[in-house]
């Protein structure tokens, strides 16, 4: 192994990050130099953290230089550990406490309208992600991380899962394409990840591989919390096998499509109009509905075009999708607003729910609205629409107090 290791970023735009250079030596003890604009306020605590990490890895003599741009402690620890593991071989992991706030689980049918992609090696974009209230965050180890940064990103994503509060967002990680992605699981499964995204998925077999790996980690560490899977189909083969993928395991909660790769695979251009993807989108929706899971649409990549995004989401919703990815926090509210039930939908749902409760109160076996009979699945859907409208602030939770008798639809 080399006796020099480094990790992190120190470009002009790399805020909230640091670059660590570590050189092992034979004598002289630990010598740490901190260059930081927050040095007068945090210099001592940065040095103490570095000493703690080095002593944990039993490094006695080293020269460490840390160029800091206001990195939070979990970032500094990740960068230093990544540098350490370039110069020594060890199975040990320097783990920060797992925040109590981060230990929540999510139900399988939770709303997943918006999932905010966060590049897995870019701390500045992660830190405030939670305040924008996406339904989920995706710490991305795949396309958003350069090949030479893949390794250090794993430490950062691991530490992020433990130390950064995403304020209730579902915590997702997109691993690398298999088989490399299997190794990523070791860095995320023990740290309370809610959902693993499997990119470029083409077969049920890949789902089984991921699940086997997860089971092995769970068995080794005695973990019992469930981890959901969201395969992403991004190729002609993936699309043709999508039903098999959707049905591959009980913990598959959604299938997403990736249209950039899919259109490339087909050799066609991706257009705003989206004719070229109508088939694949319908196919994915149908397969997911048949399997009883959520179909999730591709991202809309023009972050400046909010009207285009709105149109796109409404189309998605009309096709049957139940969520889409976002690549900028400003897309979140547009996506939520567009997926939220509109006034007509809420109105209809209120009438149905109200009629249903009326019927229940009167002990009637049949729900009717005017001259129309209402089937049980329709009632269930209406109830869900109401729940959603309340959750998204479209309807007061005490709406029944002021609601007048239902009229025929």
């Amino acid at each position: 192994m080399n006796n020099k290791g480094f990790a992190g970023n120190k470009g002009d735009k790399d805020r909230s990050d640091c670059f660590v250079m570590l050189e092992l030596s034979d004598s002289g003890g630990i010598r740490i130099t901190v260059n930081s604009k927050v040095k007068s306020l945090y210099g001592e605590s940065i040095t103490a953290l570095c000493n703690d990490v080095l002593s944990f890895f039993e490094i006695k003599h080293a020269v460490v230089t840390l160029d800091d741009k206001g990195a939070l402690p979990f970032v500094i620890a990740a960068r230093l550990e990544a540098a350490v593991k370039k110069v020594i071989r060890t199975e040990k992991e320097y783990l920060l406490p797992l925040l109590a706030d981060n230990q929540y689980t999510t139900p399988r049918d939770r709303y997943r309208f918006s999932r905010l992609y966060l590049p897995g090696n870019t701390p500045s974009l992660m830190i405030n992600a939670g305040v924008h209230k996406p339904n989920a965050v995706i710490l991305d180890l795949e396309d958003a991380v350069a090949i030479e940064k893949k390794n250090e990103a794993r430490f950062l994503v691991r530490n992020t899962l433990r130390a950064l509060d995403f304020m209730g967002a579902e915590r997702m990680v997109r691993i690398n394409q298999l088989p490399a992605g299997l190794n990523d699981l070791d860095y995320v499964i023990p740290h309370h990840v809610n959902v693993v995204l499997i990119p470029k998925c083409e077969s049920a077999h890949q789902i089984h591989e991921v699940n086997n790996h997860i089971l092995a980690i769970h068995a080794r560490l005695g973990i019992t919390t469930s981890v959901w899977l969201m395969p992403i189909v991004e190729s002609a083969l993936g699309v043709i096998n999508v039903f098999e993928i959707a049905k591959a395991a009980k913990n598959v909660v959604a299938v997403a499509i990736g249209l950039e790769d899919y259109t490339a695979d087909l050799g066609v251009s991706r257009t705003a109009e989206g004719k070229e993807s109508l088939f694949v989108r319908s196919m994915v929706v149908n397969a997911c509905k048949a399997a009883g899971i959520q179909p999730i649409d591709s991202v809309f990549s023009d972050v400046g075009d909010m009207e285009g995004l709105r149109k796109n989401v409404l189309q998605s919703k009309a096709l049957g999708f139940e969520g889409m990815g976002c690549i900028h926090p400003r897309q979140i509210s547009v996506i939520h607003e567009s997926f939220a039930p509109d006034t007509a939908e809420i109105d209809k749902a209120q009438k149905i729910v109200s009629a249903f409760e009326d019927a229940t109160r009167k002990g009637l076996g049949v729900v009717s609205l005017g001259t129309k009979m209402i089937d049980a699945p329709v009632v269930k859907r209406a109830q869900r629409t109401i729940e959603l409208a309340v959750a998204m602030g479209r309807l007061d939770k005490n709406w029944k107090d002021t609601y007048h008798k239902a009229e025929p639809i």
Partner: protein
Amino acid sequence: MSKVKLVVNAAGRSVPTEVNGKPVIAYKGIGKHKPEGRKFGPRISSCADFPDDGNKLVPSLKEALIRSGLKDGMTISTHHHFRNGDLIAVQIFDIASELGVKNLVWFPSASFECHAPLIKYLEDGTIHHIEGSMNGQLGRFTSHGKMKGVGVLRSHGGRYQAVQDGEVAIDIAVIAAPTADFFGNANGVDGPAACGLLGFALADSQYADKVIVVTDNLVPFPCVPWQIQGNYVDHVVQVDQVGVPSKIVSGTTEITKSPDRLLLAEMTARFCEHAGIIKDGFSFQAGAGGTALSIGIYFAELLKAKGMKARFARGGSNKYLVNMLNEGLVDFILDGQTFDLDGVKSMRENPNHVSTSPFTSYNYHGKGNFASMLDVVILGATEVDVNFNANVVTHSDGLLLHGIGGWQNCLFAKCTILPVPLFRDRIPVIRDEVTTLCGPGELIDVIVTERGIAINPLRTDLIERMKNSGLPIKTIHELKAEAEKICGVPAKQKFENEIVAVVKWIDGTVLDTIYKVMP
């Protein structure tokens, strides 16, 4: 300067009893200091001493300075309407240095990065100290204890007050003007360096011993409008260029693309809506800076949606505020400075876009002023403390990097809101105690951060109104704890014992002291 006697002022801060050899008064509380007597009067001049044909042109700035009697120890003033595109201030001191003049006091209404070349004159003794603002490199230089005298930081209104009560006697005012005639009438709405108005130079024109107007756009008499009246002017100089247009209107004129800042802006606008501040006929201060601009856009959307309009906005004008004026969402812009060419054009062409000055808006020695009439003002801050005190001039590492501007004066609005991030690159914005006190907490009503909004406990009315607003209302202590949980508790900054600058309150008393920081 370190031998100076210190007293504790009404804000609990230790302040010197004299600055640069002159006695000063410690801050006594808001509205407590009321000097008596008469205002400072400029020297009597006689028109018999000036040419009947009105032609006051002299061949060069150097000639004008010599004729104005430039000598050691004088106070030289400039204005900052050209912002970072000013070409004149540095030339003044180039000339002073060439003439071997020493110990000048520079009295700008604000300084910018373009003034960093003055550091060499601060080092060689041409300039003794700066009274006004010390931004960027000048601030760093001051913080490191390298300025010979003690810097004095004043608000725009405080500057007017200091001139009016004679605390600062300007010997020579140099007024760079986008357009002027040979008589000295001048304005900012026309010419290649158009900057909109010249309000920050108004006091200088009225009170300085000698007044020099410098222009690159000399027009035949009369220059109309005459924002600066030639009757106050001694000499007029024509030069090739007074300012760099692209740097006069730049930087702060685009709305932010940062999602975190947009969230702050949105939360601030929603706060104002729920608090009932946005109503027909209300008034607001529109600021520069990405967040403030974005808030203006949210205000415009809200007004449009509700079919309402504002009576007036105080500028900082820019294209977004001008759009509101043109769309009938606001009746008047009372403008202190124009930030872009749309603002300049509007001021030139629209009679409802009115030029103002610190006299109308901010002056402590006026019989009232506009700033306190505003329903809401939205300002920035480098730090806020748990008592809602705020800092705008130094950073948490003690370095002096910004001026006060109109910030202190604006605090008198009916509702003062500071949207600030909870932390900046690990540095928590909410502290136990601000590094430098610029604004007393009793004037600061609301702190908006991306993780919660704190309302000053003094504002029980706002606290009551925001119940059930759906906005994340928290205490300031909760916000501080949240930041420290993420960032860690910052160590206390260590200062040297040497005073490098003082912060004046709007009434001329000393609010706080800035100490040297080791480089």
